[in-house]
C-alpha cells in the first residue's frame, strides 16, 4: 500500500483570495509613487549618453522650469530628409526646420507659461535629450540661437552610469 495514494474522492481546497486586492493595491501605490508620467511619445530614437554626478531635474520639472527637446534618428520615415540624419522633436512634433526652429519654440513656450511662473528667461532650462551619436555641431548651433534669444541655461541630458561600467563611447 503506497503512502502517496491519490485520493480521488477529496476536492482541492479553495484558495482564499480575499487579500488579493490588498496586494494589488500595494503594488499600485508603489508604482504611483515611484514613477513619473510620460510627457510625450518619442518620435526619434534616443539612446542617452552616460555620466556620473548628474543633476536631478525633477524639482525643475515640478516648477516647469525646464523644456525638453529630442535629437536623434527619426523612428519612422527616412533620415535622408534631415540634415546629418538627425531629426529634432519639439514636444509632439518633428519640425521641418530642424534646430533652427528652437528660438521660436522657446519664445512660444515662455510666453505660454502660467501667470504665477516667476523664473526669468535666463533661468528656464533647455534640456537636450540627445542620442549618443548626435554630433556636437548641431548642439552648438542651438546654443548660438539660445544665446541670441537670452535663454542662458541649458542641460545636457544623460543617464547615470554605474561605477563599474565604463563610458559608452564609439571608437573609430
Amino acid at each position, binding site marked *: 500500500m503506497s503512502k502517496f495514494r491519490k485520493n480521488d474522492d477529496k476536492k482541492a481546497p479553495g484558495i482564499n483570495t*480575499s487579500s*488579493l*486586492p490588498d496586494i*494589488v*493595491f500595494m503594488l*499600485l501605490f508603489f*508604482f504611483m509613487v*515611484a*514613477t*513619473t*508620467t*510620460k510627457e510625450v511619445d518619442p518620435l526619434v530614437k534616443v539612446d542617452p*549618453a*552616460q*555620466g*556620473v*554626478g*548628474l*543633476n*536631478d*531635474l*525633477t*524639482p525643475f*520639472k515640478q*516648477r516647469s522650469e*525646464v523644456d*525638453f527637446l529630442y535629437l536623434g534618428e527619426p523612428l519612422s520615415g527616412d533620415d535622408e530628409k534631415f540634415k546629418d540624419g538627425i531629426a529634432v522633436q519639439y514636444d509632439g512634433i518633428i519640425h521641418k526646420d530642424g534646430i533652427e526652429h528652437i528660438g521660436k519654440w522657446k519664445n512660444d513656450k515662455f510666453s505660454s507659461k502660467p501667470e504665477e511662473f*516667476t523664473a526669468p528667461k535666463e533661468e528656464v*532650462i533647455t*534640456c537636450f535629450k540627445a*542620442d*549618443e*551619436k*548626435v*554630433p*556636437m*555641431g548641431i548642439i*552648438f548651433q542651438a*546654443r548660438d540661437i539660445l*544665446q*541670441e534669444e*537670452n*535663454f*542662458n*541655461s*541649458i*542641460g*545636457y*541630458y*544623460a*543617464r*547615470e*552610469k554605474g561605477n563599474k561600467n*565604463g*563610458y*559608452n*563611447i*564609439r*571608437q*573609430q
Partner: protein
Amino acid sequence: MAKREAPEINAGSMADIAFLLLIFFLVTTTMDKDLAYLRTIPKKVENQEKQPPVQKKNIYKIVINSKQVIQARDSLIKPENIESLNSRIKHFYLVNRDKKENRALDYPYYAFGTKAAFQQKLDIAYNGLDAYESKDVLTERDEKIIEQFNNEIQEWNKKIEMIELYTKFSGKKEMPEIALQAHVRLESFIKTDYSAYVAVQSEVEKAVTELRDEESEALFNITYTAMKKYYQQNKLENTPKVREYRKYMDLIELLYPLRLIEVKPNR
C-alpha cells in the same frame, strides 16, 4: 423596529479594479528620472572689446576630436582611459593650493585674501564713487563708471561676507582663491559624438564636485551635493535654512569655482 442586518458587499471584483488601475499606471508612466548636466551660456555682448590674452598656465584645455580621441593639455587620452581626467583636473586645482612659494609654473597660482585687504578695496571703490557722484554734470561715460563702481562695491561686500564665513568655520584668517582667469576650456569638433562630450563633462563635474564635497564636509559637516539638492528642491521658499545653504554654497563655489568654457567648433 426589528434590527436588520446590513447586506454584505461583494468585494470579489475589487482585485480586478485594482489590477486595472495598476496596469493603467504601468503603461502611462516611466521609471527613470530626468538627469542632466546644467550649464549656462554666457550672456551675449554687443561690442566685443579685445580682451587681454589669458596666461597659458591658467587654462586647462581639453580637445575632443571627431574620432573621440581626447587631448588634455599635452597628453592624449584614449576613450577607455577617460577616467584619468578626474585626477588630472584635481591636480590642476590643487597643485598650487596653499603654496606661496615653490609654485608649479604651469598651473594657476593662488591668491590669499584677507578681510583687511578686501576692506581696503571696498574703501577705494567707495572713494571712487564719491568722486564721481559729487560732479555737477554727469556724462554718459560717467554714469557707466558709477555703475561699475556700484558693481565693485557689491562684489567686495560679498567677498567680505564670504571671508567672515570662512574664518568662522575654518579658523583661518586667509582665504585661498584660485586665479580669477583659471578655467577649463572644452573644445570639440563638429562631428564629435554627444556621448564623448558628455563623458568629458561628467569627469569635469565629478572632479570639481569631489573637491567641493570634501571642503564642504570639513567646513560645514554636510556635503555640497546634499546642500545643492535641498536648495534646488526648496529654492522658492524663503526659509532660513534655504538662505543659509545658499550662503554656504556660495562660499564653496568661491573656493572651488567651476569655470568651464565650451568653445564653438569650427571644423
